[in-house]
């Protein structure tokens, strides 16, 4: 089994707010991230796939196909977007880095052929990242 990681970057804005919380609760739990006008990050995404090396091509995965899927499913949908308002997953779910990693996994998992998705890692800043392995 060989693991291959492809990296991509995108910039997006978001804010954290739960309509079931009071204004005070939202402020206490989410702090500055609760500002309804949003704020932005340069996200770094690392997608790791795994598989056996094809003896004829020497590839674990067709990198071109992986790049196309990443561009179509993630970057076209999220780059330079306001996540809360423009990405359907976040109309009723808070766009934390945790939920972003889960949403990206769900967008990719059925679209990859041959290689199996192993891990989605999303860096919100160089000091903070979330890993999702598809665990329930």
């Amino acid at each position, binding site marked *: 089994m060989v693991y291959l990681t492809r990296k991509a970057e995108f910039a997006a804005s978001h804010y954290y707010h*739960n309509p079931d919380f009071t204004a005070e609760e939202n402020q206490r*739990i989410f702090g500055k991230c609760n500002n309804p006008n949003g704020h932005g990050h340069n996200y770094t995404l690392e997608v790791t796939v795994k598989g056996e090396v094809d003896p004829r091509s020497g590839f674990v995965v067709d990198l071109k196909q992986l790049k196309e899927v990443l561009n179509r499913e993630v970057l076209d949908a999220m780059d330079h977007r306001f996540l809360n308002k423009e990405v359907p997953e976040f109309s009723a779910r808070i*766009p*934390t880095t*945790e939920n972003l990693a889960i949403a990206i996994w769900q967008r990719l998992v059925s679209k990859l052929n041959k290689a199996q998705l192993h891990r989605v890692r999303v860096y919100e800043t160089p000091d903070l990242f979330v890993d999702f392995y598809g665990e329930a």
Partner: protein
Amino acid sequence: MKAHLTRRYMFSASHRLHSDAMSEAENAATYGKCNNPYGHGHNYALEVTVSGAVDESTGMVCNLVDLDGFVQREILQRFDLENLNTHEEFLRSVPTTENLCTAIYDILQRGFTLAHLDKVRIEETMMNSFEYAGGAEIGP
């Protein structure tokens, strides 16, 4: 849905690698430049990984404010700009980055109860890093 969250912190500290159980010659042979009696320092990068179910109402594994507060209080205030050899954690062990990893893991494991602690990873320099997961294999 279970996710793993990693937060990175920086601190600077000095240490000297020296074992009372070894002769001077053995210490010099084992630790080389790190055995200099005056000690020397590093800028350490600490990564703490915690995991758990993503809370439906907050979208979080745990609130970063709580994790940052705990690490600030219990780890950074204890070790930042300090000489590690003078700390109780290293009275009976050499402050290698391996032992620093296990000491910090133990502090988090004992005191931080708001998420499951997966592992601690420390970069001593850009060229080396150490990981400890309480003796468990490192993985998802």
